[in-house]
């Protein structure tokens, strides 16, 4: 058994501002080429040999059995990875146009580096036309066109009707060159050429691995490096993808930009940093606390609607009666009770019963005004000011003098964030005062222990 362990190379070339010289695909190609290098290693690589078959020999092949491929990875993964590399054209099954790796005894051949995708191939339709035309000239059963290839040829003949004579001549010339080659060499080169076209003009239904994400292709960095012609032709026919605008030259930052950067780095340097141990502790505690609410770990009650098609669990969510688990979650932090509509309602009810609801009502009103259309904001801001902050306000709240002064100013030219400072202050107050009282209250404790239903609270006399 031959072992292979993937090497991780860290030699990605970057220019000084961190921008890559190459397309993201090149990263993948280099990793694949590392694997190929190991596979082709003379001492530890896969044995490549000539196989005798009925009436002839099959040169330069290796068996599809993947135990040699990647031992550190499980079988399914090795198949997945192998198929990925085949689909990109690094090796191919000798008797199939469909580029996959199967774990059977069928034979595969390595692609010649000339045709590797890392050479930035983007072959034109004129080249494909020459290729298919050439195939029809060679009188060999094994080179007969598949149905989809015959259809493509017919289509290309219509598209290039005007220059077909030229294409035909090119095909003839190529066929002549091929005939001169050694028979074994020809077999190998023919199959490699075919595999190249299987990558760039795949069998209908197969994935075209050369397709690029339009976000990446529209900033193609080095269009001049693209190899467009296999047979030395030029094409002026438009392709179907959106126009490639050449990427702008990487600009050197201006003096102002560097000064901005310096300011930014200085501010970031001056930040307080929390110790890693504290951060890790906080992550562990958060995930631990919420795992019972995470449906990927804890099955929802009574059932997961995706599995049972029963939406009871969602109906319970929208009902006014909160379950114990939901009430428990309000205790995790003030944000939990504020973001749950039923939580907000219960928190408000509790505070109203204590005649101390103005803080929460202010906070809720400010949240609401931030979402309003801009034309409604000034009026709302005035209303909030009058209700909570103006001298003699009916629901007067207590903010620190600094926030009060700032808010007084803001209200003169009211925007969505007029009450931001006041809201921050009130939020902190609620967190340390109202919220803690809420959690300790009989009101909350009874909800938590499901000793009462929420609607009953309305019938209790005012305390």
């Amino acid at each position, binding site marked *: 058994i031959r072992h292979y362990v993937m090497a991780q190379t860290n030699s990605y070339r970057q220019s000084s501002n961190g921008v890559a010289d190459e397309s993201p695909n090149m990263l993948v190609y280099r990793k694949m080429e590392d694997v190929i290098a190991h596979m082709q290693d003379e001492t530890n690589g896969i044995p490549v040999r000539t196989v005798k078959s009925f009436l002839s020999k099959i040169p330069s092949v290796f068996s599809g059995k993947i135990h040699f491929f990647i031992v550190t*990875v499980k079988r399914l*993964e090795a198949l997945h990875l192998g198929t990925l590399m085949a689909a990109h054209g690094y090796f191919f099954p000798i008797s199939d146009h469909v580029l996959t790796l199967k774990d059977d005894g069928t034979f595969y051949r390595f692609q010649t580096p000339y045709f590797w995708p890392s050479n930035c191939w983007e072959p034109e339709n004129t080249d494909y036309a020459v290729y298919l035309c050439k195939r029809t000239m060679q009188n060999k059963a094994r080179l007969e066109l598949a149905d989809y290839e015959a259809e493509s040829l017919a289509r290309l003949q219509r598209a290039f009707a005007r220059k077909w004579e030229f294409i035909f001549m090119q095909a003839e010339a190529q066929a002549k060159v091929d005939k001169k080659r050694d028979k074994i060499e020809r077999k190998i080169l023919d199959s490699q050429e075919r595999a190249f076209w299987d990558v760039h003009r795949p069998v209908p239904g197969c994935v075209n691995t050369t397709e690029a994400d339009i976000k990446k292709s*529209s900033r193609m960095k080095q269009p001049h490096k693209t190899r467009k012609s296999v047979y030395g032709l030029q094409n002026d026919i438009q392709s179907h993808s959106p126009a490639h605008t050449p990427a702008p030259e990487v600009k050197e930052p201006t003096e102002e930009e560097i000064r901005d950067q310096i300011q930014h780095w200085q501010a970031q340097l001056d930040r307080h940093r929390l110790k890693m*141990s504290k951060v890790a502790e906080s992550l*562990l505690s958060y995930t631990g606390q919420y795992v019972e609410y995470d449906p*990927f770990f804890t099955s929802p009650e009574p059932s997961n609607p995706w599995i049972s098609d029963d939406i009871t669990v969602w109906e319970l969510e929208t009902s006014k009666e909160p379950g114990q688990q939901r009430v428990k979650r309000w205790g995790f932090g003030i944000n939990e009770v504020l973001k749950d509509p039923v939580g907000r309602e219960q928190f408000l009810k509790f505070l109203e019963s204590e005649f101390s609801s103005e803080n929460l009502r202010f906070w809720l009103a400010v949240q609401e005004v931030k979402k309003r*259309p*801009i034309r409604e904001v000034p009026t709302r801001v005035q209303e909030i000011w009058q209700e909570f902050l103006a001298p003699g306000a009916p629901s007067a709240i207590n903010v620190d003098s600094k926030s009060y002064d700032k808010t007084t100013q803001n209200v003169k030219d009211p925007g969505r964030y007029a009450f931001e400072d006041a809201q921050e202050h009130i939020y902190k107050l609620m967190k340390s005062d109202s919220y803690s009282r809420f959690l300790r209250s009989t009101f909350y404790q009874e909800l938590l222990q499901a000793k009462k239903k929420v609607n009953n609270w309305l019938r209790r006399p005012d305390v």
Partner: protein
Amino acid sequence: MGEMEELRKEADNLKDQITEARKVVQDTTLQEAVAGTTLVGRVQLKTRKTLRGHLAKIYAMHWGTDTNCSKLCVSASQDGKLIVWDTLTTNKVNAIPLKSSWVMTCAYAPSGNMVACGGLDNMCSIYNLKGKDGNVKVMRELAAHTGYLSCCRFLNDSEIITSSGDCTCILWDIETGTEKTIFAGHLGDCMSLAVSPDFKMFISGACDFTAKLWDIREATCRQTFSGHESDINAIGFFPNGNAVITGSDDATCKLYDLRADQELITYQDSGIMCGVTSLAASLSGRLLLAGYDDFNVNIWDMLKAERVGVLAGHDNRVSCIGVSSDGMACCTGSWDSFLKIWN
């Protein structure tokens, strides 16, 4: 010229000092700290629904917020359509034809009243789903970016944030259709953005290999995180809002903590060669689901940084992924034109 040299030196010097300051708080690593925690058991999710209807590559999807017990999501495809799906019944609630078929992103407003999309047209188009006559129409076309629109996210019905190939992000007022704030600072195309759970901050990932945290109200960049070796395609917040997850063409995901101001851990495997296109965290944050160019979604134990599952159901790249707000389902969208719901 001498002054520029001085300035550049100063900037580099500050960066070095930041690296040193980060080391000071490294009293442990996340890996060491979680050594005593058991690895999550193998996670096996099944496809519960397949949403069929798009005729070309799907580039983006976004869950709506739950309302009325239905689970709605919106998807955008190169067939030039935005489709709003009822993911439980698989019915199409809306099929919105777009002016430009080169769409790259879509978003659902938290209120459920609107959806947005954009792409190579450099614009963010806002559609009103709750129009008076029942027809879905374009409400606004937000045009100011000079590059493609890679991502957009609503803050509310009045404000939306967009990221663009022109290296900037913009906060828009939807009603007036104007730019309120331009967030500039990235040196490469912005590919993705995510809003913090408290809606006060957002993060952006770009082709300059960095992620930036922005204060929406102050309009400043608070923090910059680097470490990736290629474009950052996907970005998201850890559910507690204190950490950021990124996915890159370098085939890795990373977790950065905002309070420690540095990278905590990298999610990588020598068997994974292809870039990360999209990511989402499970509700508790314990799982990271990431979509890759090799057609798979890999599921990682976020604390132990080990793979605990694979979703292999698509026949082409997984381009987008999202976990519903109650954490019950994961939706994947692919270049194979299908969306799948898993749990």
